[in-house]
C-alpha cells in the first residue's frame, strides 16, 4: 500500500501546475475560447515539447509508458485550470485505442504524428439512441470487393472539428464491433460541429455509404480494446473532475471569506461553514475514488471495470453537489459568466455526461454487486 508519488511524478505535477498557472489564467482561457485558432495551440506545442503527449502511451507504442497515476496527475492539473485543450478526447482516448488496435503502418501514419503534436484525433464511439452503451451501435460496416462501406451516424464526437482522422466504431456482419479510421475529407462524410455546454469542441458525424480502403480498418473485434480505452478515459475524467472540484471549492471558500453580508464575512455563518465542509468531504471522498480508479487500470478486466464504474458514478454525484453548492454559495455572482466558478460548474455538471453518467455506472455496479 503506497500513496506516495515518485520523484518523477512530483516533478511532473510541479511542472504542470506552473505551466497552467502561467499560461491558462482565467483571462487567457477566455481569450483562447473566444478566438479559437485553427490548428494546434502554442500550449499544445509546449505539451509536445514537455513529452506530455508521449506520457500516456506504452513504450512499445512509442510513448513514455506512464501509468494510471501519471495520467491522474496530468488530468488533475488540467482540470484545476480548466485547460481548454483536448488532451483526453483528442489524444488519450483515440491514441490509446489506436495503439491497442493499429498495425505498424497505421501507427506510423496516425499515432506517431499524434504523439509529436502534429495532428489530433477524435473517437466516435457514441450514438445518441444508444445513450452510453458502446456496444449497441447501429452504424454498419460491410466488406465488399476488398473495401469497407460504412453507413450510419456518430454523435457527440469530441474534438471532431480539429481531428485529422476520426476513429469510428461500426457493427459488422459478424455482429462484432469493428473500428475504422475515417478521414475528414472522405466522400459521404458530413460533419456538424458545435460547442458543448462546457465549451469543448464536439460534433456529429453522418456517414452515407462511405467507402474506405482495407487499411482504414483498425479492428474487426474492438470490444475488449474499447473497454480498456474507456476505462482509462473514465479514470482520467475522474482525475480531471477532481482538479475542477478542487478549484471550485477553493474559489468558493475564497469568496465566502471575502464577501460580506450584514456586515460580516459570509464565512462566519455556521450554515455556510457546514456546507463548505460538506463540499470538502465530497471532494476528499471523490479523490479517494479517483485514486482507486487510477490504480485499478492494471487489474483484471472485471475488477478494473467494477472499480472504475464505482469511481465514475461516485465522482459524478459529488461533482454535481460541488457545482451546485459552488453556484449557490456564490449567490447571484455564481450565476454570471463573469464569475470564473461558473465555468467550473458547467464542466462539473457536464462531466457526468461524458463516458457514461452515474446512473449508467451505478447500474454496472448494481448488476455485479458481490454477495460479500
Amino acid at each position, binding site marked *: 500500500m503506497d500513496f506516495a508519488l515518485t520523484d518523477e511524478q512530483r516533478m511532473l505535477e510541479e511542472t504542470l501546475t506552473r505551466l497552467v498557472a502561467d499560461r491558462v489564467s482565467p483571462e487567457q482561457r477566455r481569450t483562447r475560447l473566444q478566438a479559437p485558432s485553427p490548428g494546434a495551440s502554442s500550449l499544445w506545442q509546449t505539451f509536445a515539447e514537455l513529452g506530455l503527449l508521449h506520457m500516456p502511451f506504452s513504450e512499445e507504442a512509442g510513448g513514455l509508458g506512464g501509468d494510471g497515476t501519471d495520467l491522474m496527475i496530468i488530468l488533475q492539473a488540467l482540470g484545476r485550470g480548466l485547460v481548454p485543450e483536448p488532451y483526453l478526447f483528442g489524444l488519450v482516448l483515440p491514441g490509446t485505442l489506436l495503439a491497442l488496435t493499429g498495425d505498424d503502418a497505421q501507427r506510423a501514419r496516425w499515432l506517431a504524428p499524434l504523439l509529436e503534436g502534429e495532428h489530433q484525433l477524435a473517437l466516435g464511439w457514441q450514438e*445518441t439512441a444508444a*445513450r452510453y452503451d458502446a456496444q449497441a451501435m447501429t452504424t454498419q460496416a460491410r466488406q465488399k470487393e476488398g473495401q469497407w462501406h460504412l453507413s450510419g451516424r456518430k454523435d457527440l464526437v469530441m474534438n471532431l472539428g480539429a481531428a485529422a482522422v476520426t476513429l469510428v466504431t461500426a457493427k459488422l456482419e459478424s455482429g462484432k464491433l469493428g473500428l475504422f479510421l475515417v478521414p475528414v475529407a472522405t466522400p459521404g462524410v458530413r460533419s456538424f460541429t458545435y460547442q458543448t455546454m462546457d465549451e469543448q469542441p464536439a460534433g456529429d458525424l453522418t456517414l452515407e455509404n462511405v467507402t474506405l480502403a482495407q487499411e482504414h480498418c483498425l479492428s474487426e473485434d474492438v470490444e475488449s480494446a474499447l473497454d480498456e480505452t474507456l476505462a482509462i478515459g473514465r479514470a482520467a475524467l475522474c482525475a480531471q473532475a477532481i482538479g475542477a472540484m478542487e478549484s471550485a471549492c477553493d474559489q468558493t471558500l475564497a469568496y465566502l471569506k471575502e464577501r460580506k453580508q450584514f456586515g460580516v464575512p459570509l464565512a462566519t455563518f455556521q450554515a455556510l461553514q457546514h456546507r463548505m465542509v460538506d463540499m470538502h468531504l465530497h471532494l476528499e471522498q471523490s479523490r479517494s475514488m479517483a485514486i482507486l480508479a487510477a490504480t485499478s487500470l492494471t487489474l483484471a478486466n472485471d475488477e478494473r471495470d467494477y472499480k472504475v464504474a464505482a469511481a465514475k458514478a461516485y465522482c459524478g454525484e459529488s461533482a*454535481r453537489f460541488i457545482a451546485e453548492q459552488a453556484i449557490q454559495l456564490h449567490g447571484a455572482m455564481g450565476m454570471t*459568466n463573469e464569475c470564473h466558478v461558473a465555468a467550473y460548474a458547467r464542466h462539473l455538471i457536464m462531466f457526468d*455526461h461524458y463516458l457514461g453518467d452515474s446512473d449508467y455506472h451505478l447500474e454496472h455496479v448494481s448488476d455485479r454487486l458481490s454477495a460479500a
Partner: protein
Amino acid sequence: MNLTFSPEEQAFRAEVCQFLADNLPEDIRERVRLGRHLRADDYLRWQTLLSEQGWLGANWPVEHGGPGWGPVQRHIFDEECAAAHAPTVVPFGVNMVAPVIMKFGTPEQQAYYLPRILDNRDWWCQGYSEPGAGSDLASLNTRAVRDGDHYVVNGQKTWTTLGQHANMLFCLVRTDPVAKKQAGISFLLIDMQTPGITVRPIVTLDGAHEVNEVFLDNVRVPVENRVGEEGQGWTCAKFLLTHERTGIAGLGHAKQALRHLKSLAGHVEHRGRPLLELPSFRQRVVKAELELMALEVTNLRVIAAARGGGAPGAESSLLKVRGSELRQELSELTRRALGPAAVAFFPDFLYRDEPLDAAYAERAAASAQYFNRRKLSIYGGANEIQKGIVAKTILGM
C-alpha cells in the same frame, strides 16, 4: 375537509383552457415549449391578448380593471398557462409595481400608471438589488439628492430582469444618508429615457442575456414620481416582497416540467427499454411525483388561508424553498434523461433567432435550463435567507 375543486372552479378551468387553445399564438407556444427566449414582441403580443380578455391584471381588484379572481382562480390560471406553454407574464409592472401604486400611490399616479400597465404601454423593470447588497436590501447605496422639484439619482442597480426591453424602472434609493439603514429609503418611478441611465447586459452561466446592470449617473427624477412619503420606501419594498406570494412555489411550472420529464423518459431508450424503467432513474421521478403531490396540497392550504383573507406570511418561504428545490431537481432529471445529447449547446437557437434541425431543437434547452434554474434558490431571497425567516418568524429562534 375536501380537496376537490368546486363545479364553479372546474368551469373556470375549462374556460381558461378554451381561451388558451383559441388565442395563444402557435409560434409563441412553440418557442416556450422548446425553451427558447421570447422576443420583446412575443411578450407584448401575448400580454395584449390577455389584456383584451381582461385577464392581464390577474390579481388586481375589479375597480382597477382586474378580473376579480380569488387565489384559487389565480392558481388555476397559472397552472393552465404553464400547461399550455403560455409565456409567463412579465411581473414587474402588473404584479409588482402596480400593487405598490394602488396601495401607496397618489390618485394621479394611479390614474396615470395603472392603465398604462394594463394595456402594455409601459414595460417595467426593477431596481432593487445592488452590487454588494444581495439579500441584504437595507444596505443599498444608490443616492437621491433633492434638487428643487427633482431628485438627482446616482448609483448602480443589478439583476434587472429584462431591463433591456423596459421603458420604466421602479427603484429604491437612499434619500437620507444619515437615517438608520432602512429609514432613509424612498421608492421612485423612473423613465428609462432620462439622460444618465445606462443598461449593461449580464450574461449568465447558461449563456443567456436575461438580466442587466443599470447605471444611474445624475439622473433627474421629478419629485412627483416618488411613491409614498420620502423615507417610506422600505414600507413599499416590504409590501411588494410579501404581497401575493401564493404562486411562489411555481407549481404550474413544476407540474409541466414533471409531465415533460415523464414523457421524455418514457420514450428515450436505455438498453432497449424506456429510460423511465431504469430503477435508479424511475426512483427519482417517483420521489419528485410525491414531492409535487405534497407541495400542491401545501400550496392549496396556503391559498385557502389567503382566500379567507389571511396574507400568506412565512409559509411562503416554505413554498419557495421546497418549490425551488423541486423545480431544480426536475431540471436535473430532464437534463440527465437526454444522456450524451445534453452536452450540445446551441445558444444562437435558444437566445437568438437562428434555426436548428428539429431533432436538435427538441433537446436544445435542457442543459441551459438546468443551469438557469439554479437562480430559483438564489433570487427573491436565497433559500438560506428563507430558512432564516422561518426560523425567526415561525419558530421564534
